[in-house]
């Protein structure tokens, strides 16, 4: 009897211990997933809210609006990292000075093209930030859908990939509209231009492109 009782107590203790250990393990592995996605999502939600506030503020002149949007972009996109990702293995063939030049031109290029997309905003769009996914390398990919207004009837899906930084929290490192990664798209262009025409040509082409676009923007 006492023997049985002690056995039972052992079993009970062990199973309790096991249950505890399992719970702890489960918590340890699942909690960070949720907290990382939640943190990235809340950063992204702020970005969306701030952007919409600017877009919906009719009192702003178009120049002021453009400048404000650009400052949000500089703040929330990790341009230096994006430039590194776009260069990929070609980065080693650029001098430090060329890398800086590329970063400057790339940043300008993204600001110009990113700014243009807002010209289509009508105010009737519904922007919804959906769920997120923790990637193998601890990045977080968030899903955004835009419906109504200038969006096509089936809506537009844009995924954003964010990476945690030590000083600035979560920052966007890729934009993936309808499954087409911007980083991947630029990387294949860079790869092509560098192999066929060289690094100097890449920086020059980007520079010329920016100059003509900035001119076009000033005209409009």
């Amino acid at each position, binding site marked *: 009897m006492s023997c049985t009782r002690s056995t039972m107590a052992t079993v009970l203790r062990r199973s309790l211990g096991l249950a505890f250990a399992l719970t702890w393990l489960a918590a340890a592995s699942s909690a960070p997933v949720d907290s990382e996605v939640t943190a990235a999502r809340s950063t992204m939600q702020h970005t969306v809210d701030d952007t919409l506030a600017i877009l919906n503020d009719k009192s702003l002149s178009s120049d002021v609006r453009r400048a404000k949007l650009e400052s949000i972009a500089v703040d929330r996109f990790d341009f230096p*990292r994006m430039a*590194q*990702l776009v*260069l*990929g*293995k070609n*980065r*080693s063939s650029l001098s430090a000075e060329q890398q800086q030049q590329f970063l400057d031109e790339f940043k300008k*290029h993204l600001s*110009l*093209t990113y700014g*243009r*997309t807002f010209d*289509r905003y009508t105010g009737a769009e519904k922007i919804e930030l959906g769920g997120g*996914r923790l*990637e*193998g*390398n601890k*990045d977080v*990919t968030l899903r955004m859908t835009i419906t109504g207004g200038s969006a*096509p*009837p*089936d809506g537009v899906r844009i*995924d954003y*990939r964010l*990476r945690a930084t030590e000083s600035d929290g979560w920052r966007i*490192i*890729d934009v*993936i509209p*309808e*499954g*087409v*990664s911007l*980083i*991947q*798209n*630029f*990387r*294949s*262009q*860079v790869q*092509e*231009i560098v192999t066929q025409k060289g690094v100097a040509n*890449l920086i020059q*082409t*980007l520079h010329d*492109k920016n100059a003509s*676009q900035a001119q076009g923007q000033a005209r409009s």
Partner: protein
Amino acid sequence: MIPGPEPVQVSDPWQGFNRAIFYFNNDLFDGYLLGPVAHAWMFIAPETVQRHIEQVFDNLNSPGYVIQPLLQGDPKQSGIALSRFLINSTVGVAGIFDPAHHYLGLARRQEDFGQTLGVWGVGPGPYLVIPIILPRTCLRDALAYPVDWALNVGDGGIWTIWAPWYAGISVSASRYTNRRALIDADLDAGRAAAVDFYIASRDAYLQGRARDIRNGAEAEETPNDELYQIDDGNSSPP
């Protein structure tokens, strides 16, 4: 059943030919004919009208949208496409409206034989640019095109076998122009954003096709983590 992401390496052995045709399609044909005609059409028809026209043609693609998912082992999607066709052809007045999506949440999904081959494991093969008909394609999708020509009735032209040739050409040209009008803003944005538009459009096509073939399988939705590794220049390529 769900294939992994397609390799990042792009096969483009016919780039010289492709770039020449791309120049014809993009700079000459679109620059001097299609673009101006599409702009004139945009001036006449509001975007809503363009969208409803597009929906009518898309509804005619239903044979392909119903059959391809079956070949891909996805009877549920096939059922959705069939329901969409039955509802939108009747309640939606020959596909002008899309009540199946608006009221029943049955979203449109475009399917073609190229995607089916992709699901079966056939890679894209060399990238290919064909004058006017297939401005962006790959060997796999070009070889699949005759099947889509027959099944995706709105996109293809099987009905032109019975129609007089001028009717066939007029309808195809109208459809082509209407589609061009609908992507006008995207095309402008793409041209502005590209450093090398040929490469940008090739990459967007291949990435987009890979995504269509995955059919939104969530885990494979974005390119693999390898793309997001900072290359410090020390690691030598394999």
